């Protein structure tokens, strides 16, 4: 049988035009998203005080971030609050999802709906209601109140992620563990939790990110000592744009990219 080389198929010209058009559109969208960030990072190295003309390369603004005590303090606050929020949201969300999944009770559906409300409720409303609530029970504002506020709106994200995973999980897995001699606590810890890990990691990253850049709820629930980075930056930007903010934002961009890369790496590990 004579071998015939398959002719390379060329798409008709109309299709090629469409492909070009779509490619161009995609490039435009990406440019729209990322150009401001590129400009922002570039100007963090600009010697000029103004974000308009390029006057030469400098690390001056990074030094000024480093020298800005209140700003660093705010960053530390943010980190502490985001970490505490993440831990609490993961524990609450995971246990909540498991209880709602494992035990059928009459109020189950209503609790699910109630838990989802903080996700859609306007933040300003949450901020005010939390402030009123803390004032009523005369709880002084500080780290505690900020963390409570952050956990309130971030744990539903963990709950929903874990619930979705639980629904796809074979109920026989837990029974198999019990059958092999694991107590219910061991079965939960050694089998259920590892099976839920991808959802827990996703939920934790979500909670951390939400807490890290939260502004409105924090505005109502923080005192001066527990002011977070977004709150401090917001205060600084009100006075006027400043290359220090550019430098700070550039640091943020790199940190976020690192976090996203880490999340992708964890996801690959789980596959």
């Amino acid at each position, binding site marked *: 049988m004579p071998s015939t080389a398959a002719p390379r198929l060329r798409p008709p010209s109309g299709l090629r035009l469409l492909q070009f058009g779509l490619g161009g559109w995609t490039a435009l969208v990406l440019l729209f998203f990322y150009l401001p960030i590129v400009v922002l990072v570039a100007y963090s190295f600009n010697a000029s005080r103004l974000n308009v003309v390029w006057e030469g390369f400098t690390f001056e603004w990074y030094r000024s971030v480093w020298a800005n005590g209140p700003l660093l303090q705010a960053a530390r606050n943010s980190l502490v609050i985001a970490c505490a929020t993440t831990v609490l949201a993961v524990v609450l969300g995971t246990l909540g999802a498991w209880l709602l999944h494992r035990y059928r009770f009459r109020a189950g559906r209503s609790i699910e709906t109630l838990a989802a409300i903080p996700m859609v409720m306007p933040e300003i409303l949450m901020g005010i209601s939390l402030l009123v609530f803390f004032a009523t029970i005369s709880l002084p504002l500080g780290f505690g109140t900020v963390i409570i506020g952050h956990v309130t709106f971030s744990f539903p994200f963990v709950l929903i992620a874990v619930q979705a995973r639980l629904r796809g999980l*074979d109920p*026989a897995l837990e029974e198999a563990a019990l*059958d*092999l001699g*694991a107590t219910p606590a061991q079965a939960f810890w050694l089998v259920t939790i590892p099976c839920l890990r991808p959802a827990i990691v996703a939920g934790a990253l979500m909670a951390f990110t939400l807490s890290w850049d939260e502004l409105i709820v924090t505005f109502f629930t923080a005192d001066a000592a527990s002011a977070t980075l977004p709150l401090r930056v917001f205060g600084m930007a009100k006075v006027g744009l400043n290359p220090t903010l550019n430098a700070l934002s550039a640091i943020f961009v790199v940190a976020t990219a690192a976090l996203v890369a880490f999340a992708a790496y964890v996801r690959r590990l789980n596959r």
Partner: protein
Amino acid sequence: MSARVELRNVTKTFGTVDAVRDVSLEIAAGEFLTLLGPSGCGKTTLLRIIAGFEQPSSGSVWLGGVEVTHLPPYRRPVNQVFQSYALFPHLTVAENVGFGLRMQRVPAAEAAERVREALELVSLTGLDARSPDQLSGGQKQRVALARAIVCRPQVLLLDEPLSALDAKLRHAMQLELKRLQRQLGLTFVFVTHDQEEALTMSDRIAIVNRGRIEQLGTAHEIYHQPATPFAAAFVGEANLLEAELLELDALNAQVCVKGGLRLVLPATAWPEGAKTALVSIRPEKIHVARQPVVAANTFEARVEDEVFKGATDHLLLATAAGTRLSAVVANESALGEIFHAGDRVFCGLHADDLVVLRAE
């Protein structure tokens, strides 16, 4: 060490539904017992009651002479092979098999040795480090089996473990399970809806229907002496015919079945004092020929339909009186008798091959 399993008057109610109704069952140590029935008949609930996943609403469960009714699953010397296999996805094959030993705090060196032995027993050496999602269906099945037997349970429970395998593999696994059971001398309680599986492997079969055990016996007994119409129809094929008593003497009972066919059967088989009963005739017990045959019951019939199935030929017969019967004839040789729709044939049926079923 295998143990005797005993269920005493076990009833299980879910809401208003009786999944299991007053079941008493004794399974001997080292026996291969199959719970056979259609889906939703309560066979899986029975297994879950033995495993400890369900508490009976009333009645008691005994293992090796010890009552375990209220013992949680992790304190019972029983292990189960799940229908979905339920392998832990985050653990390797060896870690899956070793899970039970880890729970029992067996020393690491001994555990590793026992895991190796168990994997060897199910012919799965060399796959220790694989993760479950890298295994084929048949391999997963073997891992689930190894994981259950490595703990040396007194009873092994199997919940339709072969239903996800293709026909060839299923057949091979049936024989292997049977071999394994003999080799280990373990008590096996096997749940299935597949009658062929039950007939192939079991020492005894319990036919479960609507939460009750309809018949308990060897494959032979169940097939040749079905106790109820359900048992007769569920295992193998059967012509179930309503019969009316015409004449009864010391030796024979003469009956007239639905459609008008008259048949003779041993007087002892007929239930005392009954006017009517249900008669079961296995299709392969009807001898079909071109020439008249010699038997206690002979009749002529017309072939209404014929289906060729390779080893056998399935015929639908109608007698002159109008009784319809299905019959199976073996295709012994290519030159043998071949029947076609429309043929007139002679049929013979031995009196002993008629089974009278208990009136409902």
